């Protein structure tokens, strides 16, 4: 262009660092106020939807009250929240790592299923192993299963340019059907049953409960530890390792990455494999952490889709994703309570989640409504179909 931008006043150093962590800079309004207002607005609109569905204001307040008590109101509630949060955090990492490399990983559902099935297979295939060996082995199965299911779309993207939005979604459907088939197959099916339910894994593969000594009903298990470790690993991977630097460069500017000598094809496959592995761990957590150690169709219970919302909310940063995972875990556990006591369907939490993302992804919207001052930012996370 003939007219170059003349020298603009650059931001101070702290703002630069904060921006890297949160994507919002020293703009406290951006980091704190907007998300809070977004969540608040989402709840208001959610309440409106419940109202339009024919419930009174009293029910709405009871419902939201139940959401709170059911999520953080007691040790049991917190246990539930953490139980739900574990696979969510892992799945959120699966999406977030993809985002960082410019890839849209919608295949969380399928990767969870395949990872879970692999973990399950390892779980019931080896009798008499020590838990110290069996559990990590089963988790490894989850990692491998998810990595393959994520790696294939990554490979397709690298080699043929097929956009991963479509391929991963298709792989979700394929995985769902494959899971049902496998659960009815001789290898997996519980002997004596005709419905799709699997044999149980051995106790040695179980993710141990954390608070069992207090109360047997507390479901929280070490899956949450796995999730937090995975988040720490993701942070290290993205920001401290050479591979992570490549991922981020390829995501930010694939052309410059190529010119700088990075192998973008390899990066795409690696990213999707790592992301898939995270989701596979989520699947393993679902199977190895549940009471009966059995697999049933749909054990991915929409975690893969919630994960997209979480990654956006957490700005694709491991810290943010953990926070978002806890929030969404709270919504799920509170939602259970809400459905039980206030008789309000749990799907309303999905609506609230979607609204939260809309408001987070369009901070300008919140700013316009609440008249909050802003710094200017358009976020482009992906670049369309062009490869």
């Amino acid at each position, binding site marked *: 262009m003939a007219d170059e931008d003349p020298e603009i006043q650059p931001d101070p150093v702290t703002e630069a660092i904060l921006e890297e962590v949160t994507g919002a800079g020293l703009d406290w309004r951006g980091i704190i106020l907007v998300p809070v207002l977004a969540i608040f607005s989402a709840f208001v609109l959610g309440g409106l939807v419940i109202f339009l569905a024919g419930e009174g204001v009293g029910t709405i307040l009871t419902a939201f009250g139940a959401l709170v008590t059911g999520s953080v109101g007691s040790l049991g509630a917190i246990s539930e929240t953490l139980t739900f949060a574990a696979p969510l955090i892992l799945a959120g990492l699966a999406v977030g790592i993809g985002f960082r490399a410019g890839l849209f990983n919608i295949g969380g559902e399928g990767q969870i299923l395949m990872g879970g099935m692999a973990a399950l297979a390892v779980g019931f295939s080896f009798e008499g192993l020590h838990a110290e060996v069996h559990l990590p082995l089963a988790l490894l199965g989850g990692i491998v299963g998810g990595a393959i299911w994520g790696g294939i779309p990554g490979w397709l993207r690298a080699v043929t340019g097929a956009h991963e939005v*479509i*391929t991963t979604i298709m792989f979700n459907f394929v995985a769902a059907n494959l899971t049902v*088939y496998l659960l009815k197959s001789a290898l997996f099916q519980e002997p004596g049953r005709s419905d799709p339910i699997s044999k149980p894994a051995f106790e040695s593969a179980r993710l141990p409960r954390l608070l069992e000594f207090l109360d047997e009903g507390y479901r929280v298990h070490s899956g949450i530890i796995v999730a937090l470790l995975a988040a720490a690993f993701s942070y290290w991977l993205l920001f401290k390792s050479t591979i992570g630097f490549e991922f981020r460069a390829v995501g930010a500017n694939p052309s410059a990455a190529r010119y700088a000598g990075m192998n973008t094809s390899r990066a795409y496959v690696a990213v999707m494999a790592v992301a898939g592995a995270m989701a596979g761990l989520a699947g393993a957590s679902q199977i190895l952490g549940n009471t009966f150690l059995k697999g049933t169709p749909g054990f991915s219970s929409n975690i893969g889709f919630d994960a997209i919302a979480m990654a956006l909310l957490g700005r694709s940063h491991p810290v943010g994703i953990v926070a978002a995972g806890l929030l969404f875990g709270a919504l799920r556990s509170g939602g259970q309570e809400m459905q039980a006591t206030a008789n309000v369907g749990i799907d*309303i*939490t*999905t609506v609230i989640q979607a609204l939260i993302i809309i408001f987070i*992804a369009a901070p300008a919207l919140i700013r316009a409504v609440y008249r909050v001052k802003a710094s200017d930012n*358009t976020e482009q*996370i*992906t670049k369309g179909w062009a490869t």
Partner: protein
Amino acid sequence: MTTVQEVVQSPGELRRAKAIGVALLLLAAVVAIVFANGTIGDSTFRLAKITDTLPDLALTVPAAATSWIVSGVLAFLGAVQISRGFGKKANLVLGLSFLLFIFAFLAWAAADNSFSFIGMLETTVIRAVPIALGGLSGVMCERVAVINIGIEGMLLGGAFTGALVGSLTNKWIGLGAAILVGGVLSSLLAVLAIRYRVDQIIAGVVINILVLGLTSFLSAQILVENPELNGSDTFRSIRIPLLADIPILGNIFFNHSIFVYGTFILVGFVTWGLFRTKWGLRSRAVGEHPKAADTLGVNVYRLRYLNVILGGMIAGFGGAWFTLGSVGSFDENMTGGRGFIGLAAMIFGRWHPVGALGAALVFGFADSLQGKLAILATPIPSEFLAMAPYIATVIVVTGVVGKARPPAADGQPYVKE
């Protein structure tokens, strides 16, 4: 600009050509080993219905021989492709080969049996409707450079609204409401993408989540308790006199509900509009080079809003097909990914309405194949049959069928300074 250079095959292209040749040989092998080997009997492809003028019209072939012949042809084509290559015609040959493969497959599945091939073709057209309308909606949006991942949500919203409003009033008002809801959802996409410059793919995904949550919630909360709100009148097939009496073609195209006719009419209308009118030229300019259009006084924002909303209305219409065009009642998440398959059809059809329709017919065929094969009791488990349309989508989208160019400004928000 370089001119007058010869076109040469790059190493990448040579590899792809060889890969196609190998694929053809593999297909030939599958046909020989699985379909031809050990198959006995004749397969009858019924081409007419009992009520037709020529009720016995059918194609009967010896199953094994057919497969052997097809296998031979495929092997021959594969050999030619590997040695000499078909050049530009390779895609055409590949497409034809798949047709032959499917033919052999059907012959094998129907060995010593007969099945209504005409019924299958009819179902193909019907099943193609939501995919074609989804793809058309995608074309409308992407031609002005707005990626619409939210088609799935718009279909679902249209389905729900059609059932609910149709039960409350009548099917016509229900249809109108479904179209309206599609438009409302796409205007949400438009506002997020154009005004607030949210990443378009995110905006689309969010709309899908939102609609899924809303419809599931409302379905569980209201429709389950009140089934009278979930049982609308549906649109029946309308026979077009004279045209419907044409053997074979009459059944395939001229005996359907308004959804099918509407699809064809809309495809024709949008094609005419895009390539012959002022609106079309300006819209396409906005999608290819919005800055150029802007400098000539074309209102980029207004055209984007307009086309995206129209696209949403088309998707709403497509969504109504799920309820008002079939059973009249809504089921949670009943669209089953058709919106995404519609996007694949759009890419397959190279962002052209007619191309999207053609692609949708292919996917519709995969969909109807699954249903037919279940009836024929083939040894393939039903879950694998259910995967057929999705795997077909992946194959298509991996560009086995060649690379296509989307509108140049696709996915980029336009910033007016």
